[in-house]
């Protein structure tokens, strides 16, 4: 039975224990190795204005420097990706970077960055930050690499949101992969409205319920959508 890419990357990030922060560090490292880029960084952004709020993790050198730069300058691919709700891909930063981010691109190019690829950590209008791959040569990501990077972003989102506990049953964590089912998003909206909480908190409540009742997220979502299940703000157990 083959392991899904999501589960493989999550397991790998959580190998060696520690908390979600350690997981994020390992994730950046593994992503950089697997996709053969100079560095990878992960930044959380403000839900109000999408400006970088904190650098969660970054590989040493270029990524560390350029994630910090975005934080200090308040501009860069991370806030752009989060506000637009889509990846921001610059295979040739020298030709396209300065128009996008006059100050950041200058710093990036001077640091030896030749291309960058930023993936928002997002689920619809839940936007928490972004994962950026920095390369020291101009290059593109092919379809497989793009697919891989998107999974890294999904796992990064899970780490930031869910604060995956060390030693948790990763099978369940993988089941809690938000996935492609639109019912999950409908249920998220319904729970948010019903309980008067933010979308992200509604999603976390759905996940918590699924986890504690040993059910898949999509099954719980379907019950919520069909009004067979009403979640409470405080979950037992």
């Amino acid at each position, binding site marked *: 039975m083959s392991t899904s*890419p999501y589960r493989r990357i999550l397991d790998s990030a959580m190998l060696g224990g520690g908390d979600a922060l350690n997981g994020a560090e390992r994730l950046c490292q593994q992503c950089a190795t697997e996709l053969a880029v100079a560095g990878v960084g992960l930044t959380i952004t403000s839900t109000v204005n999408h400006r970088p709020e904190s650098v969660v993790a970054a590989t040493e050198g270029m990524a560390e420097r350029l994630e910090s730069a975005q934080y200090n300058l308040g501009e860069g691919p991370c806030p752009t990706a989060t506000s*637009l*709700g*889509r*990846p*921001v*891909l*610059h*295979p040739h930063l020298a030709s396209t970077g300065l128009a996008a981010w006059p100050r950041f691109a200058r710093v990036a190019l001077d640091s030896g960055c030749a291309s960058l690829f930023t993936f*928002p950590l*997002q*689920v*619809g*209008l*839940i936007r928490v930050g972004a994962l950026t791959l920095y390369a020291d040569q101009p290059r*593109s*990501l092919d*379809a*497989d690499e*793009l*697919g891989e990077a*998107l*999974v890294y972003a999904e796992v990064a989102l899970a780490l930031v949101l869910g604060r995956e506990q060390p030693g948790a049953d990763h099978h369940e964590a993988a089941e809690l992969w938000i996935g*492609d*089912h*639109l*019912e999950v*998003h*409908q*249920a*998220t*909206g*319904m*729970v*948010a*409205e*019903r309980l008067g909480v933010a*979308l992200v908190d509604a999603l976390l409540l759905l996940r918590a319920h699924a986890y504690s009742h040993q059910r898949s997220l999509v099954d719980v979502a379907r019950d919520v*959508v069909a009004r067979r299940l009403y979640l409470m703000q405080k979950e037992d157990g």
Partner: protein
Amino acid sequence: MNREQQLVSVFVHLADTLTTEFEAIDLMQTLAETSRDVLPVEATGIALSDPRGRLRVLATTHPAAELLELFEIQNSEGPCYDCFQSATPIVNLSVEESWQRWPQFMACAADAGYTSAHAFPLRLRDEVIGVMNLFCTSSVELPEDDIGVAQGLCDIATIGLLQERAVREKHLIAEQLQAALNSRIQIEQAKGILSERLAVPLDEAFVMMRKHARANNLRLADAAAGVIQGQLVLPVEN
């Protein structure tokens, strides 16, 4: 409107939408509905392939819920899967052959009241980026003309998704496709909120949001954001 008029109106709509206010998701919805209206089919859905080759729903006619399930099952079996793999239309298979090829899909479709299905590729040069799925409650064959219309509508959908015939940059295509997929999720979140707030079914919530977006020249995704952020208060229709 006769069929010709409906098709002309789609072309005009497409021309209108190729502006900076253009929104792929809304065009997909229009194409799904137009296909259902001009072809002898009862339901339509349009799905995109993500970089991992999974089909992700972009738009469906209503009722949406049953169509979502019919798409989900097609990640491993069904006309969409075959269409995507072969990059060719899957049309007019006999009932027997359909059940033989796709037993699980056909059972699911039958549960929803459909007896046959066809799938057309959304093609960009030599790549298939998505599929349009047509569902019928009869097993009458789709005539030659209709097959041409269906593929033509798919080609429009592809142009619409990529906004420019001459898009060469793969990374721009990837950005646009991911944006459309995330917009869909945003719209579903807003549907959930509205459905709960106004005590209306999800499909109706979508129709209300779309009406409002059109009346106010808003992108559907922006109307959805407005609903989510509490800035958009929709009236209850009588």
